């Protein structure tokens, strides 16, 4: 009787995950191999032409998404690491206050934060409008609807997801290990490079995972801050699904995106020497 307990406990969630996560992804894979349209219906042809067509048609947006996501992730790492470091080692008893302050933006809806960011950056908004009024900036200066605005928005929205896992990893570093390094006459820099940094790599790994995937697939920042010339793959999937009802193409793009991201994650995990991706992500 007790032997079955874990199965009873797991069963409801298993069913939910199987029916609404596994089955849909399989269904999507099958839809991506159909041809046809909404009016005449779709038929299963197992033709891979959806993939080659989608990639040929939207390669610009694919590459752009990966580049924007990648650049944003690198910027987040560079901006976020020092913050995590300072809070973990120097904030003392005010650690939780600083973490709370970092999490403040999460009390505001993601969409609303991005729009407020757009307010701030508006051509004649409170920031640039004022500076233009003072003659500091030329009249035609603008940030909205540029690459900078989109990448900036991605960095802004996902930065805490980079800082938190790195903080958690740094917080676990035993201070005695650092002391030992100093006792052995290591300089501050080499202590950091050879002791602290390697110990924080699981956090960096989790942080990159938690920021790169959503940033690459995010449609909101491009939609609200990017204007018409910064369309990312997320916007394409939305348009193909919701506006064009072109389910085979949209499925093929989503599937390609997921495959690229998964393969990326595994290569990255290997390069970093993280044997077990699941374990690293769970930490």
């Amino acid at each position, binding site marked *: 009787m007790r032997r079955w307990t874990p199965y009873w406990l797991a069963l409801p969630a298993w069913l939910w995950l199987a029916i609404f996560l596994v089955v849909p992804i399989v269904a999507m894979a099958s839809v991506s191999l159909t041809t046809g349209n909404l009016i005449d219906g779709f038929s299963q042809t197992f033709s891979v032409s959806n993939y080659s067509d989608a990639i040929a048609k939207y390669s610009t947006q694919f590459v752009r998404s990966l580049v924007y996501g990648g650049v944003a992730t690198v910027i987040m790492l560079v901006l976020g690491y020092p913050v995590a470091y300072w809070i973990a080692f120097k904030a003392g008893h005010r650690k939780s206050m600083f973490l709370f302050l970092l999490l403040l933006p999460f009390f*505001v809806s993601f969409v609303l934060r991005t729009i407020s960011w757009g307010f701030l950056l508006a051509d004649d908004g409170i920031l640039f409008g004022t500076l233009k009024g003072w003659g500091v900036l030329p009249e035609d200066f603008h940030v909205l609807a540029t690459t900078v605005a989109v990448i900036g928005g991605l960095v802004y929205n996902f930065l805490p997801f980079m800082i938190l896992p790195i903080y958690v990893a740094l917080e676990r570093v035993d201070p005695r290990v650092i002391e030992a390094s100093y006792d052995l006459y290591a300089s501050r820099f080499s202590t950091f490079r050879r002791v602290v940094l390697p110990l924080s790599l699981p956090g960096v790994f989790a942080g990159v995972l938690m920021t790169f995937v959503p940033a690459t697939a995010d449609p909101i920042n491009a939609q609200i801050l990017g204007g018409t010339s910064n369309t990312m793959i997320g916007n394409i999937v939305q348009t193909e699904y919701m506006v064009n009802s072109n389910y085979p193409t949209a499925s093929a793009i989503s599937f390609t995106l997921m495959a690229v991201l998964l393969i990326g994650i595994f290569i990255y995990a290997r390069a970093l020497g993280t044997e077990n991706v699941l374990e690293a992500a769970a930490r």
Partner: protein
Amino acid sequence: MRTRLGDKALYLYTWLIILWLASPIAVMILFGFNDKQSKSNTSWQGFTFKWYQQLFAIDGLTEALVNSLVIAVISTVLATVLGTLLGLAVGRYRFRGKGVTDFLIFAAISTPELVMGASLLSLFVSGNAPRGHTTIIIAHTLFSLAFVVVTVRARVVGLDPSLEEAARDLGAGTWTTFRLVTLPSIMPGVAAGAMLAFALSIDDYVVTSFVNGSTQTFPLWIVGAVKVGIPPQVNVMGTLIFGIGVLLAVANAISARRKTTH
């Protein structure tokens, strides 16, 4: 001396990042008080309380907010129950299929929202399921569930099994042991998971945008309104949600501190 200078610089830098992260919130709050005359709400035109008085003047927006709250509550309850049970299973027991379960949890967390939304829509379209409240609740429960599992599991793993054994030795049945011993000790994990689930649900745009049909939620309504101009009521609602959230979090932190000191 040089090291202390470096620390000082890092300290200032941390504040700079915090201020940067908070600046759009300040803008949001400020423009909820803007006495705007034109369509766009990007330049300051004087102070007013009128958007607070006319908070529910826009029917579509109010409806969207109510939808969001209802969906968040229902999906939080579902995700918390399912996630807690699974969290107990993977945190406590070794069983066949544990590896697959771990993988499913990882997949649920790491699948891009876009893919999750698109694939759910594929399922609903091929099953001819009408899209609306139900499909949104299904989707929100799905992405929240795994986060509940993770927070509950962390708590279960740290649990001392001898407590439950003691309860059983004292004659408590399975259900009594669960209710009086197991549940109270994993409660912080369950509560954290539930809060996370609620926050994820009320904030979600991407997945919802695929499975909503004609139902509007708060984030969807806002994005839809971007082109015609965001009414200041949105800022007011955002400000109120922000205020309530921060108050709850602070109250929670204070009561937690009281408990540990007394």
